[in-house]
């Protein structure tokens, strides 16, 4: 008998996106450009994170019409964002048949204490994480894909690197523990013991780990892969640069050939201006860090 929406089926799509780049797009034209450049999926949203950051106010789920137009424009998977804890936005996105829901800190959180019960949905979810405990809590809630949060909309890779090292290093440390030490580790990580045991045994998350938040160049994209990410999300980095089409292709190429410096060098040449980028310390001083939402 055919079974839909099993955890294996939900995770399965994320497995197929590995080694690829998921690009933020705000119009059908951008979605078409992303597909043509070799994106494995697009994230349909109203404003890229850099603009959300600049505009301020409450950032919400996108208009369904805009999501449908993007679905009609491309044949690759279409993802869309729901606010943290806003399970009705997620219900709407499921009704629109998006391929993945991103419960995202880039939007203004709807619930300061709880995330969405993702097991209750047929559509799969991706969630952000800054460290292993956060990743495992999201997996416990039903996330079928994890992305390191980084700091969206900054064009600054430093936070993505920090979060990837936290997650990958945390996994490595778990694998060194004895069985009787795992309950204590689960307590420290504030994560479900069964997920902690699974990660300690397998030496990796039970779902794919991607990187997001700050990738602006091909070298950034190759850096995250070499640090252990299995694919990349690129938000503002493409469409806030001077030549989105070339930059998109170059980031796709560098993600595939991350371990080959000559290929990354070739991909990096003559791309025009990258997005300008923000200093993280200044954002932190102003209390503007998105990564601290929904941990």
């Amino acid at each position: 008998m055919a079974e839909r929406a099993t955890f294996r089926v939900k995770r399965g799509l994320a497995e197929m996106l590995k080694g690829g780049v998921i690009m933020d797009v705000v119009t059908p034209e951008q979605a078409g450009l992303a597909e043509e450049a070799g994106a494995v999926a697009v994230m349909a949203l109203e404003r890229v994170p850099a603009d959300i950051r600049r505009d301020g106010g409450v950032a919400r789920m996108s208009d369904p019409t805009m999501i449908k137009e993007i679905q009609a424009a491309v044949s690759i998977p279409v993802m869309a964002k729901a606010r943290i804890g806003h399970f009705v936005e997620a219900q709407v996105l499921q009704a629109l048949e998006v391929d993945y829901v991103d419960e995202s800190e880039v939007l203004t959180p709807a619930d300061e204490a709880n995330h969405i019960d993702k097991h209750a949905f047929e559509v799969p979810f991706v969630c952000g994480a800054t460290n292993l405990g956060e990743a495992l809590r999201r997996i416990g809630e039903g996330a079928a894909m994890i992305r390191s949060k980084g700091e969206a909309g900054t064009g600054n890779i430093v936070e993505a690197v920090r979060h990837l090292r936290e997650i990958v290093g945390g996994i490595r440390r778990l694998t060194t523990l004895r069985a009787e030490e795992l309950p204590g580790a689960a307590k420290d990580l504030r994560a479900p013991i069964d997920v902690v045991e699974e990660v300690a045994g397998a030496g990796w998350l039970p779902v794919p780990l991607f990187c997001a938040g700050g990738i602006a160049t091909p070298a950034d994209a190759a850096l995250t892969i070499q640090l252990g990410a299995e694919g990349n999300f690129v938000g503002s980095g493409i469409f806030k640069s001077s030549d989105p089409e070339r930059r998109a292709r170059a980031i796709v190429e560098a993600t595939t050939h991350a371990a080959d410096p000559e290929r990354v060098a070739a991909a990096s040449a003559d791309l025009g201006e990258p997005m300008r980028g923000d200093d993280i310390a200044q954002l932190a001083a102003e209390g503007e860090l998105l990564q601290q939402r929904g941990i």
Partner: protein
Amino acid sequence: MDRGELAAPPAREGERPLRVGVLASQGDFAAHAEMLRELGAEAVEARGPAELSELDALVIPGGESTTITKAIERDGLAPAIREHAAAGRPVLGTCAGMIVCDRDHLGLIDARARRNAFGRQLASFETDLEIAGIGPDPLRAVFIRAPWIEEHGERVEVLARHQGHPVAIRDGAVVACSFHPELAGDPRLHALLMAMATSARKREEVPR
């Protein structure tokens, strides 16, 4: 378990293991490589033309077919893949890999795949599937935004159908399936590929 065609004897003592490439431009190539290693193959992640030469068998994995197609073009991989297939060395294409093998792409199979034929992710599913040539036990098949074979030539053998549509086929030394055998851990299609590779190697070793 009846393993049908897989009852081929294991590699002889001292024989070098089969060298099986997994196209690693994009997709779940790592899961295939792991499965092949468990079966005793030397698995090679192939991203460039050089890594595609001198292979006993090749897997074109699942992923996004548009992304993989563009990578094949960008990285100039088509001649090496066609050369491999033309030498009669086996190929296994899964999901996106089935699409990439079809008449409209690399042309390794005399068939045309229909992309996303079963629908979007919400329509993705897993099921038990009987497949000709790997024994009577069904294989757990995971279909993710999967294609089916829309139309095929006479020499193509249909190994399995779902809802009436061909979802696993064989055309000469190329096996293509709509689903992901690597996601559910049943290695029989990979073992079939390796048995075909062993036969192909023996044929090549016969002195002319």
